[in-house]
């Protein structure tokens, strides 16, 4: 009923047809329109992006805001509609498809406090009581209070450890730099399509 060659070549043909459509055409049509990056990831934030990837933040936080009239992303204050230019040169992309937690496209503007982010990473429930976000104590060091000159996290009383200080590691600082770099301050040209 079906010849061997028709089966194999037909499968390859239909595959390549769609592959060109969904991977090559986007490269042709999207990339030339992407000029300079709107969201800069630079300096220590580049390391922070790696920490963000390593700990799988993307499985609960998206980084794409849907346009006005589609969902309530903008009404919730998550930022303006995302455009391709926002992600220029970024690899791996962290657009995400899940919002167990809120979208983070504009988190650097929505929550500019460095201390808040550090405490929230150490234990989310120290600042948001009912949060179901995992804690990241392994991004922090717990040091004897006398042994260090550095300032520890200003944790609420029930999360403090007597005689100890909670000091962010390089990774935690980098991650917070990355989160604070996620802003949509820069004006953009209206969306091409």
């Amino acid at each position, binding site marked *: *009923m*079906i010849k*061997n060659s028709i*089966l*194999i070549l*037909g*499968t*390859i043909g239909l*595959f*390549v047809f*769609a*592959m060109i*459509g*969904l*991977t090559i055409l*986007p*490269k042709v049509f*999207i990339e030339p329109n*992407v000029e300079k990056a709107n969201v800069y990831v630079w300096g220590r934030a580049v390391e922070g992006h790696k*920490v963000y990837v*390593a*700990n*799988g*933040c*993307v*499985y*609960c936080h998206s980084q*794409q805001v*849907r346009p006005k009239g*589609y*969902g*309530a992303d903008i*009404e919730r204050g998550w930022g303006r509609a*995302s*455009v*391709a230019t926002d*992600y220029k*040169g*970024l*690899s*791996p*992309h*962290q*657009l995400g*498809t*899940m*919002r*167990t937690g*809120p979208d983070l496209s504009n988190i650097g503007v929505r929550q500019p406090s460095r201390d808040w982010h550090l405490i929230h990473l150490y234990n989310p*429930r120290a600042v*948001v009581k*009912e*949060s*179901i976000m*995992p*804690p*990241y104590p*392994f991004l922090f060091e717990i040091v004897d209070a006398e042994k260090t000159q550095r300032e520890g996290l200003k944790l609420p009383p029930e999360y403090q450890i007597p005689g100890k200080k909670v000091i962010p590691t390089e990774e935690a600082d980098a991650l917070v730099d990355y989160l604070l770099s996620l802003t949509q301050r820069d004006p953009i040209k209206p969306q*091409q*399509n």
Partner: protein
Amino acid sequence: MTTETKQVTAAVSMESDASLRQDAKLDEKSSFVVVAFILSGSAWLLLGSLLGAVASFKMHWPDWLGDASWLTFGRIRPLHLNWMAYGWASQVGVGVSLWVLSRVLKAAIPARPWIFVGLLVWNLALLVGGVEILMGRSRGLEWLEMPLYAIVPIVFAIALAGEAAISMLYARKVKHLYISAWYLIAAFVSFPLLGVVSSLPIFEGTVQASMNWWYAHNALGLWFTPMGLAFAYFFIPKVTGRPIYSYPLSALGFWSLLLFYNWNGFHHLIGGPVPTWFVTISIAASVMMLIPVITVAVNHHMTIIGSFEAVKYSPTLRFVVFGAMSYTFVSVQGSFQALRTFNETIHFTHYVVAHAHAGVYAFFTMMLFGAVYYIMPRVTNWEWHSPKLIKLHFWLSASGIVIYLVGLQWGGIIQGMEMNNPDIPFMTVVNNTKKWLFSRSFAAILLTAGHFVFAYNLFRLMHVRKVRPAPPVTWLDIQRQRALQPKPEPVTLGKRIASAVERVGNSFKRWANDVKIDER
């Protein structure tokens, strides 16, 4: 057994004696490789189930196992996906596919030692890739978290099995090419291409996101789906003893699947930062998927209709029919959730997670269970020990996945509607999902328990060899035997009530006796 039924059985086995002997010879040859793939995949199933359960618990008990970096949710969850998709589903899928191809093409699996070496490399790659994810060196792309030096060997191991599949296609002893073979060859041709293209380092930013979802959707659509459908097309006629309802319909289903499924990926980016016309193509293709889905559903349904009772007798058929029905369900659902209006609500919610499980578990994994229950006695020549345990496995898996889907999809729709209402604070939305996350954890316990029962069945078959399989019994035989046996007296409602009353009376008597003994 009466003499008459003995005669019937003898006649049936005489009829197909030559073909049976040929199949037995083929099974003997494929035995080692097929068993190796099934056992190896089942080991990954157990590991993957435990990871899935842990990830599920962490969703509502976030502090549980929260101190170690390698146990954090964001690493356990992708590892669950990778070990399930590339360990369990792909390995057992390849093993079953090779066996089915050997049967329908009447050709022995070639290059068996090389395929086995491929399996060893594959397992090593899964282990290395898994450790890398736990160490925080994920590639950061969903479905492609394992580093290139882990995923590329896996693609090559699959390509090796695919090469064997294509050799079998050309070396086949039958002129006619059965439907299952079309689907399996398509799967074996597509996946290596998919793996190679997705590994090219030419994608970044938004284009990488498009590639990512093109890959992830096609891993389901061009790898798991054709394999699962091939198994359904093989086992339903095999067990019921009835031919496939319509060949032209199957051809339509096959080519339209390849034509439309390929284009579905962008429906994961509806409302995202990509040109609208790309998304529109994917939405159109997703809706067009109704064509292959309905043709396949009609074909399977029309084949099994009239033999539906066989589901009670054949564990294989029970799993396969559950899988085939889930395929229709999940695909129709998929077509509708690609529509912009529905997607607006369910995008970014737990609903989508449940949808993915409906595809990979309710459809594909159930199909694999059915296939394994059929194949193992034939390739090892040892029978399963306990039909009761197989039944237990079925009910644990079936009830587990139904609870999973109902809870999480209902919860996901609520989550989506609340999220699209800016007057509801985000924390309220989160709090309202918690109970559904609990229901998922309950389902995870049932599913994991089911998988351990399955593994125990496999272990007993392999190591505590007891019973030889009976000569092949088809549904046709059972029907013929039943026609010869005297009909049992029909049980009327009155008789049922009488017997229930009697039982209650008896238990009262026993209780009264116990009391008397206690008083003494």
